[in-house]
């Protein structure tokens, strides 16, 4: 029973990691930008959902369409910013922009909402009993969204023309350009998409997450972990890695003594890297 509860909890937490990781691996692998602010956009999504609930009475699912549009716009603006200052100047430029965005968004959220942890539950869908614990429907929906997102991304990249263009650009931008693929647009689209995904992810997890303005940093670190194991640019790898990390965390938290609760997931990651040194190669 207890073990089952832990595994379910781990899978649900893991799907949140996967969700964030899919977006991050996209911006890193195809957009070719290490966007330090990726986690912050998840935070923006969280607070956007809170805002829509408090001011407009819309729960996150109802606010999804306006949210998606808003995040696509924001994503495009940020992609332009990175393009202008990052790509041409060099990687210091893009790291600086990413860091600046991380700090700015965190500061903005702190001003608007202060550091008090917030939460809200909408819609109240109740839950389903599994292994003696009640699993809220909102969490299950978020997990389903993750899988749908990953599947959509995977098939898009694999099968559609745009997707193949993205893969070509990811492998060798210059060569792709010679074949008529417009690399800059493709990369910009990838950055935009990743931010849109991040924002929408934040909205999906809002009903069951306690939010603070510094959420951006902790989500960033989770995103890093997922990408290390899953591989840069690998969508399915991100999903598997996120779920694995979630389950390991839950199991160690459930059974082991305090010291190991933090260490175990990190050791797993390190161990994984040592065993598979070619990990992280873009697909």
């Amino acid at each position: 029973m207890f073990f089952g509860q832990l595994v379910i909890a781990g899978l649900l937490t893991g799907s949140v990691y996967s969700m964030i990781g899919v977006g991050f691996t996209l911006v890193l692998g195809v957009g070719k930008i290490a966007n330090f602010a990726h986690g912050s956009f998840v935070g923006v999504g969280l607070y956007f959902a809170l805002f829509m609930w408090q001011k407009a009475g819309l729960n996150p699912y109802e606010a999804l369409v306006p949210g998606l549009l808003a995040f696509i716009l924001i994503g495009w603006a940020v992609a332009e910013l990175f393009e202008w200052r990052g790509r041409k100047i060099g990687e210091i430029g893009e790291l600086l922009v990413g860091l600046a965005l991380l700090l700015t968004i965190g500061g903005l959220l702190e001003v608007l909402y202060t550091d008090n942890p917030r939460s809200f539950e909408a819609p109240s869908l109740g839950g389903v009993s599994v292994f003696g614990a009640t699993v809220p429907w909102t969490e299950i929906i978020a997990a389903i969204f993750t899988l749908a997102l990953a599947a959509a991304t995977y098939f898009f990249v694999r099968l559609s023309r745009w997707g193949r263009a993205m893969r070509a650009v990811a492998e060798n931008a210059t060569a792709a350009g010679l074949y008529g693929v417009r690399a800059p647009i493709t990369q910009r689209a990838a950055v935009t998409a990743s931010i849109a995904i991040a924002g929408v992810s934040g909205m999906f997890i809002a009903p069951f997450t306690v939010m603070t303005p510094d959420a951006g940093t902790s989500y960033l670190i989770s995103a890093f972990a997922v990408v290390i194991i899953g591989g840069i640019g690998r969508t399915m790898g991100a999903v598997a890695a996120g779920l694995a990390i979630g389950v390991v965390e839950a199991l160690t938290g459930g059974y082991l003594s305090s010291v190991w609760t933090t260490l175990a997931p990190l050791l797993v990651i390190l161990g994984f890297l040592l065993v598979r040194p070619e990990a992280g190669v873009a697909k």
Partner: protein
Amino acid sequence: MKHRRSLAGLAAVGAIVLAACASGGGGASTGGNAGTGGGAAAGGSTSGTITLGEVTDFTGVASTYGVPENQGAQIAADEINAAGGIKSLGGAKLQIQKFDTQSNPDQGVTQATAAVAAKIAAVFGGEISDTVLGGTNVTQRAGIPWIDTGGVADEVHKRGYSTVFQGIEDNTQEAESYHAFIGFAAKQLGIADPTVAISYSQASYGQEFLQAWQAANVNPTYKVVSSFGYPLTTTDFSSVAARMASSNADILFNMGYPADGLELTQEFSAKYHTSAKLWLASGANYVAVVSQLGAKSNGTIMGYVPAPGMPGLPAGFTQAYQEYKKKFNTDPNSQSWSGYTAVYFLAAALEKAKSTAGPALTAALKQVTLTHGHGNPYPVPAVLKFGQDNTLVEAPGYYTQVQNGASVLVYPSIADAAKLLPYAG
């Protein structure tokens, strides 16, 4: 030649930037027109102001403590000034100058140094123990008293710095208080041979608190069936809650930060059902829990503060409370009263010492008391006073339980305290 010239320019730039540090640093320290030490004794300036430095976190994660603390301190200063200021120093008015440590241990020394440089008479504040531990080195050297209003590490006063005063209960006192409460609760609810499951935050706060609690439980009154820590950065408490629930203990006890208690309460009410009769979320902020979870948090026990309607409220409490609400549009919390009492302590010390000199104030702080109507907002204890080891002889400790979506006092059993109900999560 050009090379040399521009590189010499670099040297100039570097020196200028450092000099800018001087003016910038100077900028940070202006505004404190305090009565300087010693001279203000006899007679003193007629319409002077005395500046107190508040070194605490106004931004960052700990600002949820620091900002209310400042608000409470402000109310105290307003009351004292309205009553005529520090009479023994010619009616000098109190003024509070803020030094923001930004929830960053790096800033403890820096802000304490700025405060001392601004010639404040005394320091109070500090939410994070590390900040207080770093900054008190500076004030101890300068001979200036510091009343710690938030850092609970025993180390703060155990280091033996004579100028450091523990203005709220420290880890040991808090642990003993919880110990006493659990004993009371077990008897009330008829639990024989109580078993306890403990989860604690692996930060220094959680670990120290656990140690102190175990020390208080030295003749084991409760059997600890499960005790485990979780990382400070935990945001998802599912496994913590599952583990606590599966332990089948009578009593669930969490030693963590406010967000931890809030989340665990949510988990227990929505996901993991427990047979425990008592759920203690120490460290949780009852205002946030009630406002965000309402009736779902029924049965949760948390630390409490004096609130309207509580039996035995002292004179002056209601007025201070209303002033606070009017000025800041929100309820005061534990840190608000912590700041409030700190300012009253310092005012009393200034009155007694008739001076703003550090050593005189430090000596006076050991002698003054706060009574009902004169700076003590708590029904119990009746008198607040610092003991020999610079901690409060008796520290206030209240417990609330959420019943029907509202907080009610359940301990200490002052007349009219509500009856304790078993947890039904």
